[in-house]
């Protein structure tokens, strides 16, 4: 929202030392976000009003014109590409030396004489964004230049002087105003500024309007949606341009003047924050009462009283709004009608048919209050946000309607002395605002703020903001002004905020809280995530990736998963990725794909939540037994390389290191089911202390191919939520160091290719007390071993805690091992 400082200071007296910048700073610290302070006419030196004497086509360019421009003392030849340039037009001319922003982009540059397509141009005819006046002269098309013809300016007048650009404009962030319906007009903001600076606020008293004899009635069908509706009819109206003071006011805050009546409604909106609407009374009536037009002399006598009906729209009803758009309505939307024809979408936009036209002579002025939620829903559904809907959706004070209507009537009559009020002033209302009093214990302020604000200061702050305060020994009794009661102030805490922000957050001391020393509860899953990141990044050189929680249909198809397993967004940001990931893999495969052309080998991982509709997650409400879908925290790591087996082993290496670091017992476990993205013969489940917590596998080549990835991909997935649930207190334990020497024997066996290390390992457990441990150190197949066989090299370590072993003892134990392996696995020693 744009605020004119001149307009603001019409209402609040500030010491001359208080600059617009100071007001902006104070507002920022105590009330709302001020995004920008712009002094009008800044950088307008050497820019003057010019009159186009002639505009010929440029001999060397189709879209350029060669203009002779009268700029007072001299005539300049200027080349211009403006879409609306024409002979006789008054324009803004930047002379050589002026500072302009080329095409409205970048920093201002000093204008030099230039040759454009061979012809010298000694200045520039400006578009509004080239001279920082876009707010004042909004552009309709890209190449539109500022047209000043409607003003009676003398060529050569400096533009700043001609346009009376002596104002300063504050740009306020609308979002920061969302809970302050009272600040959506200049008067309301002036009231706030007066409170902040202890300035004097000019009082507005509603002028008395004398009603006329014409009948005008209002019927509200939904009082909740429309708590108040005021209307009055005037005739003798003459549509004309507004006087320049009004035009300047509107332009200063970015509105285009239209005509006196529309400008009045806009002025009131910007002044008081109350949206107004003006209907053409004749059109309103003639639509509803066809007889009226043919017998106008008897108007008001014979015909029925013109009635405004506020009702909800019918499903699918159509309506053409002022902007000439056909809108499709539904039953949640509120309409203003005359009983038969629709006049406006309540609080959002008027209709094209009933709008003010140059021929209008009679009007009905509307000043109403609509339910915020209803307006917001309507405006959202229609995709139509207006200055009016933006205000109504903040919950305006219904009391504002009467002041606004009186001011509007007075202003119409001032601009158009022939206008006369001809109807009674209709005021249908039913609303209640809670205005207190709130009884707030005196110590409540200190309890909330941690500092004692003197009672005098509390009373004064609240008083300046319009609150009523009565003090007793124990309490402040606070009444809430109606303009603050419609939304944001309803309880003691809200009042504390008012006092605190006026006192200044900077003035509240900083005091660190003191707490008992109780160690925080252990966050196991979180600790686990941290440890795994450290192992993977620091020890194993993996890179951590973060991905979206959403996947595409193509990705789901590419990994071969069932679409039915997926939760879907109702309103996805991109149609491409509407599904919630139930596996971290697809996104990681995309990561590999996008990095692969440049990097042969990749080691990536992600830790994040997956969403599984068939699993039960946390509760969805405090009571009841509804649950959210399962959202386990997962680790997935991927290793990609062109090597045929390395990726799998690298992934397994990571699994080994992780469990070693966590000091958790683990084992592989045959998978009872193969997922479509898993390589069926390079796949195992991983169990930690008996419970399956992960999977180790290679990606099915079909899936790699679908993702467009060359080479193999090893994957290790670990369910961290499942792992964290276990009581994992296995720490490394100390074993006394034997003082007797160990005996090491390396033996390679030829076994069937399908023999597994796990089976051999199981068989070797407790085979002989002297066999302390054993390690696989080498596996190979190929030409050195018979087809269908492989060689497995083990190192066996024999020792005793009690004595040095004899050769015979070791040989006996070794023989036992060899015999057992020969018997169980047909293992032959390779010599």
């Amino acid at each position, binding site marked *: 929202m744009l605020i004119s400082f001149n307009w603001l200071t019409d209402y609040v007296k500030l010491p001359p030392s208080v600059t617009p910048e100071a007001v902006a700073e104070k507002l920022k610290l105590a009330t709302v976000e001020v995004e920008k302070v712009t002094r009008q006419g800044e950088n307008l030196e050497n820019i003057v009003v010019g009159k186009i004497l002639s505009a010929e086509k440029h001999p060397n360019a189709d879209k350029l014109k060669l203009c002779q421009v009268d700029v007072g003392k001299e005539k300049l030849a200027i080349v211009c590409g403006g879409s609306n340039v024409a002979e006789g037009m008054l324009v803004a001319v930047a002379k050589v030396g002026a500072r302009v922003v080329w095409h409205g982009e970048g920093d201002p540059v000093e204008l030099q004489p230039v040759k454009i397509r061979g012809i010298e141009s000694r200045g520039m005819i400006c578009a509004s964004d080239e001279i920082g006046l876009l707010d004042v002269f909004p552009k309709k098309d890209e190449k539109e230049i500022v047209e000043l013809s409607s003003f009676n300016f003398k060529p050569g007048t400096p533009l700043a002087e001609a346009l009376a650009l002596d104002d300063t404009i504050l740009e306020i962030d609308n979002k920061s105003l969302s809970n302050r319906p009272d600040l959506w007009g200049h008067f309301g903001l002036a009231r706030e500024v007066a409170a902040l600076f202890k300035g004097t606020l000019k009082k507005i008293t509603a002028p008395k309007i004398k009603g006329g004899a014409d009948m005008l009635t209002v019927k509200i069908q939904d009082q909740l949606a429309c708590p108040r509706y005021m209307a009055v009819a005037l005739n003798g109206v003459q549509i004309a341009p507004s006087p320049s003071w009004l035009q300047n006011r509107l332009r200063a805050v970015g509105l285009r003047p239209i005509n006196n009546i529309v400008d009045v409604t806009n002025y009131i909106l910007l002044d008081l924050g109350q949206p107004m609407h003006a209907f053409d009374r004749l059109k309103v009536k003639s639509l509803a009462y066809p007889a009226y037009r043919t017998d106008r002399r008897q108007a008001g006598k014979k015909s029925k009283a013109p009635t405004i009906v506020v009702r909800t729209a019918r499903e699918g009803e159509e309506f053409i709004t002022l902007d000439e758009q056909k809108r499709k309505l539904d039953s949640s939307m509120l309409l203003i009608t005359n009983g038969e024809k629709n006049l406006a979408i309540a609080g959002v936009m008027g209709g094209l048919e009933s709008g003010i036209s140059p021929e209008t002579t009679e009007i009905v002025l509307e000043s109403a209050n609509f339910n915020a939620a209803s307006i917001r829903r309507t405006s*959202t559904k229609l995709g139509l946000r207006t200055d009016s809907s933006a205000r109504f959706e903040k919950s305006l004070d219904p009391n504002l309607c009467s002041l606004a209507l009186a001011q509007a009537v007075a202003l119409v009559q001032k601009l158009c002395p022939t206008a006369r009020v001809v109807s009674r002033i209709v005021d249908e209302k039913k609303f209640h605002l809670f205005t207190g009093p709130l009884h707030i214990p005196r110590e409540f302020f200190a309890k909330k703020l*941690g500092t004692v604000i003197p009672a005098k200061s509390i009373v004064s702050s609240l008083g300046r903001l319009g609150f009523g305060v009565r003090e007793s020994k124990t309490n402040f009794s606070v009444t809430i002004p109606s303009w603050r009661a419609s939304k944001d102030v309803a309880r003691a805490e809200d009042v504390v*905020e008012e006092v605190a922000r006026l006192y200044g*957050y900077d003035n509240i001391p900083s005091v660190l809280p003191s707490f008992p020393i109780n160690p925080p509860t252990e966050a196991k899953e979180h600790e686990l995530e941290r440890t795994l990141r450290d192992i993977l*990044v620091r020890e*194993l050189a993996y890179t951590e990736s973060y991905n979206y929680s959403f996947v595409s249909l193509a990705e789901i198809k590419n990994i071969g998963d069932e679409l039915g397993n997926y*939760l879907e967004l109702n*309103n996805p940001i991109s149609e491409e990725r509407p599904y919630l990931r139930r596996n971290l893999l697809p996104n990681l495969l995309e990561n590999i794909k996008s990095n692969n052309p440049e990097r042969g080998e990749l080691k990536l991982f992600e830790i994040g939540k997956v969403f599984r509709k068939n699993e039960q997650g946390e509760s969805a409400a405090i009571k009841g037994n509804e649950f959210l879908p399962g959202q386990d*925290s997962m680790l997935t790591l991927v290793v990609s390389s062109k090597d045929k087996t390395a990726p799998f082993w690298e992934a397994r290496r990571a699994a080994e290191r992780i469990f070693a670091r966590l000091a958790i017992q683990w084992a592989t476990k045959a998978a009872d089911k193969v997922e479509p993205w898993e390589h069926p013969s390079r796949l195992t489940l991983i169990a930690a202390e008996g419970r399956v917590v992960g999977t180790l596998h290679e990606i099915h080549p079909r899936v790699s191919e679908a993702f467009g990835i060359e080479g193999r991909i090893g994957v290790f997935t670990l369910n961290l939520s499942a792992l964290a649930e276990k009581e994992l207190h296995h720490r490394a334990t100390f074993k006394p160091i034997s003082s007797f020497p160990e005996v090491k024997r390396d033996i390679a066996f030829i076994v069937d290719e399908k023999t597994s290390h796990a089976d051999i390992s199981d068989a070797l457990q407790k085979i002989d007390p002297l066999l302390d441990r054993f390690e696989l150190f080498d596996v190979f197949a190929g030409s050195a071993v018979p087809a269908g066989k492989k060689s497995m090299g083990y190192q066996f370590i024999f020792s005793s805690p009690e004595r040095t072993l004899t050769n015979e003892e070791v040989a006996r134990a070794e023989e036992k091992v060899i015999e057992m392996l020969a018997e169980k696995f047909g293992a032959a020693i390779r010599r």
Partner: protein
Amino acid sequence: MFDEITKKQVEAVAEIKAALDKTQLEKVETKWLGRKNGVMLEIMKELQKTVGEERKQFGQAANQLKQAIEQALREKHAELSEAAWSNLLAGERLDVTQPALPGATVGHYHPLTLVQRELEDLFTSMGFMVVDGPELESDYFNFTALNIPADHPARDMQDTLYIKDHPEWLMRTQTSPVQIRAMQKYGAPLRIVVPGKCFRNEATDARHEHTFYQLEGLVLDKGINFSHLKATLEAVAQHLYGPQTKMRLLPKFYPFVEPGVRGEVTCSLCAGQGCRVCKNSGWLEIFGAGLVHPNVLEAGGINPEKYQGFAFGFGLTRLVMLKYGINDVRLLESGSMKFLEQF
């Protein structure tokens, strides 16, 4: 005889000095001190033949000769060793400016992880517990319990991602629902931080992301007030940006706190002088905060008459962008190695 010995001494020392390498020196040594037919051996044989005073004088001279030879040999040995080392080492020269090859492969933490850890470590050192919650939330926890009424704009489809066929489910728009879950689970007093992923229905570009990360905090105890909020967040700001950092609080509306503020710190890039990053204001907004609204405490099962608290939220995504000067927010979830390996 003595003259003879003196001559030999001169001769021997000259020969030793003339040796060019260790092989020659060995030959010279053998010639003079050799055990089979070294010159010295011959002299000693001569010595055997003498008696009395002559023998004594002869012995002294012979001894002197031997010592002189040994001395010269030691010196020559040292000289030759030194030269040999120099030669050898000169030939072993390495280009020390060259990096070790092949380079060690190193992993990389995601920058969001790095910044999140920095904050987590600070808060846990102050006795906060790190808590997590669901990313797919219920309307109740994400909105209703946080004092966000049914018609609040935040609930619009254009701001919130909802789940198909489950009108009560949505992707959480903030980490604040975990406040309620934690209050329910742990009660008061309570000190938690909640780092996590949040979502909003927003088209992405260099400055906007539908997926972003927050770090939420909540402190509940008897007698917690605004001055505590201020000091705690000042401590955080100074931890992040250095002890000279100033912080200021400005009013901002959030339904779940009252009063609500946003926190700005002096821009760390220009030390508050004004630059492009802080849009010439000298200040950077880095968090929102406030005293927990009584309705929120009640929703969490906490008696607002007994306990008060403050809550705050940092935009981790924003902190990361500021810290590393990242110019496109989409890079954070691009999985691009060119980006990730910079951290």
